[in-house]
């Protein structure tokens, strides 16, 4: 057993940290307050190579391993990048671009990946529906083969990057036969395709710089060549994104905890009450310790999922669910502690901890609710 990162991995994390602090973080608060997606920062992530870190160099990627990708994502959180931007980058890179890379043909890769990797184009994934959330196999969006086209009808809900996506990986039912999950297929749908539209941006509690909306398909005709893989393979593709969801998409939460520790320590050393810094009070110290304890408990769960993917091992659903449940449910407490340490200021938008508190509320909901994780764990344990 060896938990060491390579020097290269650590060096790269350090570079991402510096880059994010200088180029991205100064813009986060303003965009969060306005609830606006930061296109400029997104492009900068692309220019720096973060949007395509693990893809092959010949497609414009960085050829990095999954652990390095996790460290990069962690560094963004650690720098103080808002959860909206890290969510948008996660959905773009790992739920959309990676699905095209993993399951697409050479032509599909060549057509879509280079611009997705640079951030010139933005991707999203359409899986959840108004009537199919946790029970994803209940999805009812239909794709009917018609000559050399498929015609899509239905709606998607809570789609990260939905209103701004140029390319969407959309899951739809192509067959009613067999088990429910067997009739699901995945398609690439481009912005501007007649019959394809995005709903209004949802006004969310947290991750406000990430746009979320419904997607609508009304007799939306797409070329048959936009099918990813083969008919009926969609469910497995969707499930494969879970590997990313439990590693790279969780990593910003780890980094965010380090950021909370830094913010809480700095504030409590500076803030004086009763003639001394509040850091001198055990009630404050206890809360700082709680955040640190959570962070250290969570680390190995995320790193392990990433390492297993690097080894080419199939996802261990039990361990992945444990990682998601722990990161999701238990992270709310330390985020709350950070707000309390900041007192009244922690309740104000001007303080980063307020934003992180709101952003972290998504963790037990997005990418599979905590309740679903508990169902998986109790079934497999």
């Amino acid at each position: 057993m060896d938990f060491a990162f390579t020097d290269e991995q650590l060096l790269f994390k350090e570079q991402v940290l510096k880059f994010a602090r200088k180029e991205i973080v100064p813009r986060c608060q303003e965009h969060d307050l306005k609830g606006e997606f930061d296109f400029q920062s997104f492009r900068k992530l692309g220019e720096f190579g973060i949007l395509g870190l693990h893809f092959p160099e010949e497609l414009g990627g960085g050829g990095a391993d999954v652990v390095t990708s996790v460290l990069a994502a962690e560094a963004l959180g650690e720098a103080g990048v808002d959860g909206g931007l890290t969510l948008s980058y996660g959905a773009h890179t790992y739920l959309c671009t990676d699905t095209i890379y993993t399951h697409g043909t050479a032509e599909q890769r060549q057509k879509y990946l280079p611009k997705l990797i640079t951030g010139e184009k933005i991707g999203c994934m359409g899986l959840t529906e108004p009537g199919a959330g946790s029970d994803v196999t209940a999805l009812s969006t239909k794709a009917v083969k018609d000559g050399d086209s498929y015609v899509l009808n239905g709606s998607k809900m809570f789609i990260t990057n939905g209103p701004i996506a140029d390319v969407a990986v959309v899951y739809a039912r192509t067959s009613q036969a067999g088990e429910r999950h067997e009739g699901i297929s995945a398609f690439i749908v481009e912005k501007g395709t007649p019959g394809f539209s995005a709903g209004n941006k949802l006004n969310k509690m947290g991750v406000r710089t990430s746009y979320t909306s419904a997607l609508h398909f009304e007799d939306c005709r797409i070329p048959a060549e936009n099918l990813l893989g083969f008919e009926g393979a969609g469910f497995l593709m969707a499930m494969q994104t879970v590997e990313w969801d439990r590693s790279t998409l969780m990593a910003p939460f780890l980094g965010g905890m380090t950021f909370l520790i830094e913010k809480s320590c700095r504030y409590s050393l500076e803030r004086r009450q009763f003639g001394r810094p509040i850091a001198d009070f055990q009630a404050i110290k206890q809360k700082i310790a709680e955040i640190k304890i959570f962070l250290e408990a969570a680390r190995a769960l995320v790193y392990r999922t990433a390492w297993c993917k690097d080894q080419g091992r199939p996802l261990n659903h039990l361990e992945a669910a444990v990682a998601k449940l722990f990161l999701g449910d238990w992270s709310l407490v330390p985020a709350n502690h950070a707000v309390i340490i900041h007192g009244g200021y922690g309740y104000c938008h001007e303080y980063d901890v307020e934003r992180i508190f709101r952003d972290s509320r998504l963790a037990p909901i997005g990418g599979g609710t905590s309740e679903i994780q508990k169902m998986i764990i109790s079934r497999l344990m």
Partner: protein
Amino acid sequence: MNFDLTAAQKEIKKDLGLWLKEEAEVLEALSQQDPKGLEAAHRSFLKKLARKDYYFQVGLNPEEARKNPFADILNWIFLGEELAKVSPSLFMALECSTRLFGWLIARYGHESHLQELLNPLQQGLLLGALAMDESSRNFPGQEVLTIGQKEGEGYRVNGHKKQVINAPVADWLAVTGKVEGQWAVFLVKADREGLLKGEPQRTFGFDGLGLSNITFNQCLVPQEQILGLFSRPDFLTELRTRTNLILTVASLGIMDRALQGAKHYVSETPDGSKPLRAYQSISFKLAEMFTLWQTSQWMVYRTAWMLETRAAGAETMAAATKVFVTEAAETVAKEAMQIMAGEGVLAGHIIEECYRDARFGPVFGETSEVLRMKIADDCLGKYK
């Protein structure tokens, strides 16, 4: 990076696990023994375990221990976990003897100590104890009142140590104290004149664990039975971290026992009824318990690796792990008891034992409260 055990580690872990399964009945009976019977049973088990030579070798190689206080600690944890989940109280007794007393000898002992104390300990013939804590309010940095005064070729020791694990049954005790303003460890044979053992103390949990206060009243300790003198109390920090780790691994064992007990109970279908695990409020509890256990396990492994490789931040990591894992064990045991309803509160039931045992972890060693302050101080120190 590598999250796997080596083939050799897997093999040894499996071998020990299988052997402990065979010994399950003996181990179960341990907690029911009276103090005399318990001592005999412990000693008999020690001899048998010593035949598995790896258990008493791991981490006790003097050459390695002198280079690194946490040498081979990851291998020890893989093995300790197996024993802890079968009998947490035996694990505690054995580890306080082996990994505290034995380790002190391996790291700081003279050649004669290796022959006279470490060898018999590794053969299962000697039981040791470490006496470290003094007052009932054991704050870090508190003054040590166990003092040795030079007298002829030895030291006349006076002082008092509280709640010493194994004290009622140990053959030898390692006692921390001070001599001429410097730190020292007195190695004292249990029957030495001037060493007074208090009555065995009864504890809320860990049935079968021998515990008592000890007093030194003009106890003459020969010069050659002293380790040190040390100008800095680094060895105390190492001992505290090791004690915390033992409690942490014991907590892993308690969680495993509680989880297995609860899992078994909720899967039963008496009279063809629906198993309890079919109810979501029960199965979700199990999922949360499992999550705490698995998270704890990885945290312990990572801590051990950090200590062994002397990674930056290892001490704080160890503190965080002690707090998290011992408190997680309490939660897991409590939830297991809730799942078992009335059955779980019956005296002698495995879950009732787990519940009582789990309470020990956050209290013994360095308390959760002390460790939280240390963790916070470390965090704050980076920004001062």
